[in-house]
């Protein structure tokens, strides 16, 4: 049995022992199983159940209970340090190794939203768990979670869109240099007649479009065109829907912020950062799970493709694996693990994203889409075009990440590859450049 699974079981055993002690003292009537005792969130249960979560390095207990944020805290640009940090923080909180946990920002020069929000979700869920335990009368070993060493720039980020805002709801009202799309948490309703969550998704998408539009107004630019509003709504709507539908923990998260930039010609433009994620099974894990993947036709076809790649020795460990291949294929037009007539969300997202960048997207150094699921990283920056494939007389949009535009050929390793760090779910990280051509001209 892995360390992580045994750890999850240990947490439950301790709780059960505590409940039995309460029962002996007469503080619980009835069976202990009927008691609504505090338990870890589905997210946390899933995370601590995987020994290789975030990083292949073993959990390293911090002797001083200080967790140093990496110099660049980014899952894309500093993955090894950032993933290792998340793992150490996760298991330290799970084990309750210390009286106080200190998050040290003194070495940090840059925080990216992707790493930041993962940390915030972990912290938020653990704080909720510890508070429930306290309320229930169960003592926690961890009494405090503090921060130290923040530079003014980092502090500004934390107050605007980072941990201070997302966890403690503390905001710095004076500094408006970052314009934010606040954290939106969606939960997939499990009861058929529960429509609250379905409404939240549409509100979240509307708020996102409004935020981009408001940011442009604040930058003294005119509004987005109706077409651009539609594209942004389409992008976020499809991906948020996917994140929710495919989350095995039932939660999805979206967050973003907008920052003004100036180029060498003193042209102003905006860069919208957006992260959408869920924790749970990765795309590949869903496809290979017979209980999760209902579309058996897809599995047959993917296995045929895997055989082809194996025969031609196109797989290589730690560079391009079956998981990389299947994850890429799962993004294509018409492919879904849920049913045969679904499967258009991610490819539509990429298509809309490409159009939003504008006519000269190939020269755009800012806009990039990254998807991490399990041990696979896919990067999209407009270098490769979509190709149209005709299958049985019907057209499909294909993104093969190679010159041939053909999925039978290996994709460019710079764009589709296996990575050593494991993301327990799927995260999409987008940077969208809003240029003047997207703006409505005032008459």
């Amino acid at each position: 049995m892995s360390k992580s699974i045994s750890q999850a079981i240990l947490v439950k055993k301790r709780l059960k022992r505590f409940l039995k002690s309460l029962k002996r003292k007469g503080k619980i009537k009835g069976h202990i199983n009927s008691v609504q005792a505090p338990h870890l969130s589905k997210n946390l249960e899933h995370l601590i159940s995987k020994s290789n979560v975030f990083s292949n390095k073993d959990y390293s207990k911090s002797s001083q209970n200080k967790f140093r944020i990496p110099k660049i805290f980014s899952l894309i640009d500093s993955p090894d340090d950032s993933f290792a940090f998340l793992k150490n923080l996760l298991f330290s909180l799970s084990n309750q190794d210390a009286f106080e946990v200190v998050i040290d920002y003194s070495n940090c020069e840059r925080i990216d939203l992707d790493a930041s929000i993962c940390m915030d979700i972990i912290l938020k869920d653990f704080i909720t768990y510890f508070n429930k335990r306290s309320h229930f009368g169960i003592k926690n070993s961890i009494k405090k979670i503090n921060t130290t060493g923040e530079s003014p720039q980092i502090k500004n980020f934390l107050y605007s869109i980072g941990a201070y805002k997302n966890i403690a709801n503390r905001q710095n009202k004076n500094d408006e240099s970052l314009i934010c799309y606040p954290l939106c948490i969606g939960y997939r309703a499990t009861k058929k007649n529960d429509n609250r969550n379905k409404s939240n998704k549409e509100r979240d998408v509307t708020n996102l479009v409004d935020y981009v539009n408001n940011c442009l107004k604040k930058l003294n630019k005119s509004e987005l065109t109706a077409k651009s509003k539609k594209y942004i709504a389409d992008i976020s709507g499809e991906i948020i829907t996917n994140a929710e539908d495919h989350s095995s923990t039932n939660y999805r998260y979206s967050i973003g912020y907008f920052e003004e930039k100036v180029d060498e010609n003193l042209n102003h433009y905006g860069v919208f950062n957006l992260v959408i994620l869920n924790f749970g099974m990765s795309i590949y894990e869903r496809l290979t799970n017979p209980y999760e993947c209902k579309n058996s036709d897809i599995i047959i076809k993917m296995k045929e493709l895997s055989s082809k790649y194996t025969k031609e020795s196109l797989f290589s460990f730690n560079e391009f694996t079956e998981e990389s291949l299947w994850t890429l294929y799962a993004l294509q037009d018409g492919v879904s693990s849920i049913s045969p007539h679904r499967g258009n969300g991610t490819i539509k997202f990429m298509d809309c994203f490409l159009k939003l960048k504008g006519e000269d997207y190939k020269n755009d150094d800012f806009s990039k889409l990254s998807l991490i699921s399990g041990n696979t990283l896919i990067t999209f920056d407009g270098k490769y075009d979509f190709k149209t494939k005709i299958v049985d007389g019907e057209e499909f949009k294909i993104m093969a990440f190679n010159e041939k535009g053909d999925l039978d050929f290996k994709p460019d390793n710079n764009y589709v590859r296996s990575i050593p760090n494991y993301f327990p779910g799927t995260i999409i990280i987008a940077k969208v450049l809003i240029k003047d051509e997207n703006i409505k001209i005032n008459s």
Partner: protein
Amino acid sequence: MNSYKIKLEDFRSIDAKVFTGRDRGLTVRENSKIDELIDKYDIVEIEIPSDLYSINPSFFEEFLYNIVKKLGKEDFFKRVKFINNGEYEHEEDLLEGVKRILRRTNAL
């Protein structure tokens, strides 16, 4: 010819200017009773709110799934009319939704 008008405004989520997701499409399909209306009326008109940003193809796909399957593409467009006075242009998303419904296979 008898006709019936469905106002999507009646099914809009509070504070939302989009219709998105298959689950919402299914909800609106059931609540609007469009599958029954198409049997009772020659023409069904669907009015789109004028301040809408987008109706996602996935929403159209689920909302119109049964009637597109029943009528086919040609008859569907003869009998289902959209009223849209806003800036949002629904035609591309609608066509994409109809195309997905009629799709028989996938990219692989």
